[in-house]
């Protein structure tokens, strides 16, 4: 059916004014955020003592509630971190429950120094922390039991929430909890050997599954508080536009409308509508007649940007990687050279749960409920908007219906809008809802990119010279992270290329970061979304040209020390024997990529149906160090592949004309449905006892190049422009 879009308003964001505040208030905090990523798995978490009582509550009925210092938004951390703690605690898993932590210093990421989910760091950074919490609590329970029985602690053992002592004595944790709480928290504690794990490394089902199958799980959008009002905001049609005049007479005439007022946004201004119910608020917003002031605003046009980016890519940018001889390419004879140009569109995250935030301003304090990936930032910015200090804002982390980076903004613009509105309604909880149209048109996209690559092949069929130019907006420019841009290079634009593990002797990567009036943001797997596509389609093309098996070719070209990548290619080779035996009309595509310290290789079986790729199956090999919950790792990879298919969807693009976003909803910006995603995905994990690395983002980069590599076999064409409008 045709959606009724008449009267839908646009939105915008306004970052600049607020970012200055943010930078001043939080610069030091945020500097530490980005740095550790490269070395996170090698570094143990900062030696900080965490009070167990902030994380563990053992009730007298034997229930053990574990507080999770992360947002749960699908990645399964609300199960995996409690598993880690419960294992070292020797807790009875059937009695374990888990809840999401409110914003507080103690729940900050041990490496990032901020309470957040991002960079696939939840398990990687909190594994050690949660093990120690479990082990220390166990030691305190044992000490309490040993005291009670007048025996030495080392004469006691624990299992399933019970301490066992000499002479058949035993005591349940629930009986010991009060005594244990009076024991000192040990400074150091022995952790289990891997062979002693009872939960870690075993497939454990999610704790939140039952509530998510019967409708009882509450998400941020489901919040219902006494006296609560609903707010929607009419956002500008062009980013940064301001309200010139507004006629709100019809809107105000609707029963249930409480207020209509102009409000400042991150950039420009908007009109807020507050009503008793969502449907009233939305209808009232549709009735607003707003005249917008677009004076002096850049009105981006993606067709023009493509031409501009393509031109820029023919010139050298800021140097991101350089090794060997820059002139080597020019000495290679023309027949052994390849020139390739790629284009990538803006992408919206479009999590299933539309963006929302609820704030109740109570004068000298406030309460907020936000499905947030950046609790520390969101709490601080809500406080600033209300004239309060962060610790005057009680901040509840609400379950989120997806996020993929969209709920981690450096300007916290959605919670801030809620706070600005709530300030006018003292002692009234205000739930701000962004409609799907607000979300799709609202910016904060994965940036558009152009790549231009010149490759020179050596006599062995391997690339001996590689010159690569990337064009795309910087994610970090204009944010508190801007100081992370080094020599004009934003690492998030070049990750996956500049740091490639392929051994190319003469290798040069540079980047241009144009400024465009479109807000951009990290999108699940960030720069790897486009860089892996470019690298893995080109390497595949070179393998085809050299007539070498694509797995063998990759292994030949990889550096010897790229151990994780070698391990996944070897495992993939073993597990994808099916690829030697394909039905007519089908082809197999290969890709491999390492991101966030997790290596992935995949083989996909593809045919062409109705001029679209049909992905019949995918076999995936993963090296993520120790797989804490293999069932969850499998789940992330099965789903992450389907998520990545968005890049190939015919309508997988956000475009702008005359400054206005042309898509409004899923009818025009269309992620993968069941028919588009792989029909079957088998996931194989390289056995490992190394430190665990993340699995949220690494699945995403591999799928689109693998599918396209299969398509190239079927059609003989190369696919370098996304979205994939036609095969």
């Amino acid at each position, binding site marked *: 059916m045709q959606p009724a879009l008449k009267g839908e308003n646009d939105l915008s964001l306004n970052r600049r004014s607020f970012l200055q505040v943010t930078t001043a208030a939080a610069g030091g905090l945020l500097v530490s955020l980005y740095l550790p990523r490269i070395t996170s798995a090698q570094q143990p978490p900062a030696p900080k003592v965490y009070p167990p009582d902030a994380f563990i509550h053992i009730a007298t009925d034997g229930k053990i509630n574990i507080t999770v210092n992360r947002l749960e938004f699908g990645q399964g951390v609300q199960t995996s971190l409690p598993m880690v703690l419960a294992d070292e605690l020797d807790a009875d898993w059937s009695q374990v429950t888990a809840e999401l932590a409110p914003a507080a210093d103690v729940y900050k990421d041990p490496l990032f120094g901020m309470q957040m989910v991002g960079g696939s760091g939840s398990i990687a950074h909190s594994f050690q922390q949660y093990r120690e919490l479990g082990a220390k609590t166990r030691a305190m329970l044992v000490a309490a039991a040993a005291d009670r029985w007048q025996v030495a602690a080392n004469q006691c053992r624990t299992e399933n929430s019970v301490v066992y002592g000499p002479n058949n004595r035993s005591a349940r944790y629930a009986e010991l909890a009060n005594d244990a709480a009076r024991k000192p928290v040990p400074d150091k504690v022995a952790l289990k050997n891997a062979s002693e794990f009872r939960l870690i490394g075993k497939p454990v089902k999610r704790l939140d599954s039952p509530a998510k199958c*019967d409708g009882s799980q509450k998400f941020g959008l489901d919040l219902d508080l006494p006296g609560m009002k609903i707010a929607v905001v009419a956002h500008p049609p062009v980013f940064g536009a301001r309200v010139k005049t507004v006629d709100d007479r019809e809107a105000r005439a609707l029963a249930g409308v409480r207020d209509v007022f102009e409000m400042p946004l991150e950039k420009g201004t908007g009109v807020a509508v507050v009503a008793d119910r969502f449907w009233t608020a939305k209808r009232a917003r549709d009735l607003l007649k707003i005249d917008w002031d677009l004076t002096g605003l850049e009105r981006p046009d993606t067709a023009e940007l493509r031409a501009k980016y393509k031109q820029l890519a023919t010139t050298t940018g800021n140097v991101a990687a350089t090794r060997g001889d820059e002139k080597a390419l020019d000495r290679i004879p023309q027949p052994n050279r390849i020139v390739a140009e790629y284009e990538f569109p803006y992408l919206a995250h479009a999590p299933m749960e539309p963006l929302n935030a609820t704030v109740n301003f109570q004068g000298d304090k406030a309460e907020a409920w936000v499905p947030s990936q950046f609790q520390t930032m969101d709490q601080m910015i809500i406080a600033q908007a209300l004239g309060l200090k962060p610790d005057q804002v009680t901040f509840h982390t609400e379950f989120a219906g997806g996020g993929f980076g969209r709920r981690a903004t450096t300007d916290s613009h959605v919670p801030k809008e809620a706070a600005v509105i709530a300030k006018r309604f003292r002692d009234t909880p205000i739930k701000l809802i962004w409609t799907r149209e607000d979300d799709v048109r609202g910016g904060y996209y994965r940036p558009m990119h152009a790549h231009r690559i010149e490759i020179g092949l050596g006599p062995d069929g391997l690339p001996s010279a590689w010159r690569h130019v990337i064009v795309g907006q910087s994610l970090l420019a204009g944010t508190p992270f801007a100081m992370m841009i080094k020599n004009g290079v934003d690492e998030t634009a070049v990750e996956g290329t500049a740091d490639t593990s392929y051994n190319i002797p003469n290798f040069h990567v540079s980047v241009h970061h144009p400024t465009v009036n479109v807000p951009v943001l990290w999108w699940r797997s960030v720069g790897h979304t486009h860089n892996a596509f470019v690298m893995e389609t080109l390497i595949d093309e070179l393998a085809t040209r050299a007539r070498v098996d694509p797995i063998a070719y990759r292994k030949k070209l990889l550096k010897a020390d790229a151990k994780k990548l070698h391990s996944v290619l070897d495992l993939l080779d073993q597990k994808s024997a099916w690829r030697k035996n394909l039905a007519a009309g089908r082809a197999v595509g290969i890709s491999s990529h390492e991101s966030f310290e997790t290596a992935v290789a995949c083989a996909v079986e593809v045919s062409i149906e109705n001029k679209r790729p049909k992905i019949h199956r995918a076999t995936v090999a993963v090296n993520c160090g120790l797989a804490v919950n293999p069932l969850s790792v499998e789940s992330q990879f099965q789903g992450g592949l389907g998520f990545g298919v968005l890049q190939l969807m015919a309508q997988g693009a956000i475009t702008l004309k005359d400054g206005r976003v042309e898509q409004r909803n899923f009818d025009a910006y269309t992620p993968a449905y069941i028919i588009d995603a792989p029909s079957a995905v088998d996931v194989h994990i390289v056995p490992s006892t190394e430190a665990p690395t993340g699995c949220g983002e690494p699945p995403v980069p591999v799928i689109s190049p693998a599918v396209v590599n299969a398509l190239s076999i079927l059609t003989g064409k190369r696919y370098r422009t996304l979205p994939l409008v036609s095969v």
Partner: protein
Amino acid sequence: MATFHLNINGSEKTVDVDPSTPLLWVLREELKLTGTKYGCGISACGACTVHVAGIATRSCVVPVDLIGDRPIVTIEAIGKDPVGRAVQNAWIEKDVVQCGYCQSGQIMSAVALLKDTKKPTDKNIEESMGGNLCRCATYVRIREAIKRASQQLG
């Protein structure tokens, strides 16, 4: 505003709302049945799927004044139905959910499919589940869970 008497999950409920209000927002805001989700408002994602007289229906585009006396079943009550219970159990057994936001709608669509087609083929599944978007892309396990529920129901 107008008064509507609705048959929701087997009991009669009375609401006083604007006649244009979609059933979704009546369920969520008037009746506090928040298991049914808002995802798009244009019947493009299926997160709002409920059963209206046994038919899987996108509640975000059905105005309340079109419902009449047709019985409505939502995710909160689908477990009382043997097929509904089997689907929920299969979802849990296969550990389908990730963020979980779309899963009420997925389950309501799957129940409607299995009531209609006891032994669905992959093609049946793709057709019946074809309009239910899952941004976490839990589709592989959704397929497995539907087959598992079908098997359990015999």
